[in-house]
Each structure stands twice: as C-alpha cells, then as structure tokens.
C-alpha cells in the first residue's frame, strides 16, 4: 500500500505503523459521570465498518507524525490523509 503523506508525498505503507480507528483520538474525560462506561467504549468497542474507515497510522520510519488515513476496508482505496494533530485540534482537543 501507498500512503500519500500530506507533507512528504507518497510513501510505502511499510514505513508506517498502524494503530486503529481514529476514534482513539477522542479520549473521554476522566472526571465525567460516566467515565467508566465512556472509557470502556473508547478502549474496546469499534464500528469496524466494511467501507470507509478513518484510521491512525504512525510514520515511524519517517517524520514521526501520526496520520489520520481515510481508507476503504474492502477496496483498500485511500481517499484522504491528514495530520492527526490537525484532526485532533479540529475535534476540539487542545491541552
């Protein structure tokens, strides 16, 4: 597979390490009422779609950036690659 890195251009996926669903960015609030349930869902439940999937890849043999890759889990076609840091900020994560 080839991942078109937003900053570096196309690179062999072998340079990357896969983590999983980009929902892992949305770490729940540890002090929330339902923190236990929220962390259980965060840590263990997955949509696991057959189709478009937003997922986290780490460019370990490259610039060490975490990427959010939108990839079809049936065709493996990649339609978007973003810096995870930008996605995290867009999802309201900060400090």
């Amino acid at each position: 597979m080839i991942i078109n890195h937003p900053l570096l251009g196309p690179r062999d996926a072998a340079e990357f390490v896969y983590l999983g669903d980009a929902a892992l960015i949305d770490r729940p609030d540890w002090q929330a009422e339902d923190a236990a349930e929220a962390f259980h869902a965060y840590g263990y439940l997955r949509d696991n779609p057959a189709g478009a999937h937003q997922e986290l890849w780490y460019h370990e043999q490259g610039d060490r950036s975490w990427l959010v890759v939108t990839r079809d889990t049936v065709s493996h076609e990649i339609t978007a690659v973003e810096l995870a840091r930008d996605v995290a900020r867009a999802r309201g994560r900060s400090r």
Partner: protein
Amino acid sequence: MAEYTLQAEPPLAGTEMEIAGVRLSAPADLAVVSLALPLGGESAAEEAVKDAYGLDFPGIGRSALAGDGTRLIRLAPDLVFALFTHATPDAERVVAEGLKGAVYTTDQTDVWVALALSGPNTRRALERICPVDLHPEVFGVDHAARTVMEHLGVLILRAGADDYLLLSASSSARSFLHAVEVSLRNIA
C-alpha cells in the same frame, strides 16, 4: 586531573572503499544537532535560524547549505537537523548559543553514523535497498527523506547529482555498512 583521557571511537571511522565505481566513505567528525521549534514560537525560531545561518528555513523534506558549511535538514514541521563538521563533543552547546534559546536543541551526533556515496552508479545501487524514488525529477539535489532500508531506519540526503549522504543509528552501524556495501557488490 588528567589521569584518564577518553579517545573517540566512532563505529565506522576510516570506512573508505570503491565498489562498482561508487566511492563509499564515512565522513569524519560529522556533528548532528536537532532543533525543535517551540509550539507558538515557530516564527521566532525561524528568525533565529536565519540570523544564525543566514539562510531561509528549508521546507519539509528539503535541506539547505549555510555559508559556514552547516547543512540544515527539515525533517518535520517542528524538527530540523543541523549537520556540520565538528570534532569535540560540544556540538549541541555551539548550536544552542547561536540560536539564543529560540529552539530546543538536542545533541544527536552519537545517535547517528553517516555514509557518503558518490558516483554515477550510486542510484542503481540504492535501488536495491531504498524504497524512496530517487529519480532526479522526484528527489532532486538537497532533497532529504527518512525511510527504512534492510530493517534499518535511514535518513537519506541528496547532496549532489551523484552524491548521497546516508545516516542511520550508530548502534547498528555494522549492519548498516553491510547493507550498503552488499548493494554495491550486487551491482558490480
């Protein structure tokens, strides 16, 4: 108290060979210092770098050569490597002083070992281990990339039409040299 003195023993010191018309050598006294740009302080950092080295901040995956021979390589948005010839183990201090605290500096000199390859067959040899497209129209002079070769993380830099500089982890220096050397022998 000069009772004991320490001699430097860089892993690839003295490497020097020519195979398949490619000259392979380990540059002596190559210092590497990483520059991390503080969050929010990026522009200040870029200014400091301009002042210190008198050149524009390179783009990501590009490098630039300063008047004093220092080569700046932009590896990531907030990370730059400064490569320069410097024998004593104080490279980080030297760089830090020049940048007046505008960046976070870390000495990387001993983290890496370097191999320089030059000669028209170099690209043909690197085809055997380098997944990155080194075609001149794609990977021109001053381009740099981090990738993986024979299970080793490698930073590859194109210093000239037929000149490349490869950096890899110092602990695996022997395997790194082996990988590059075999590539040359296999096309000889």
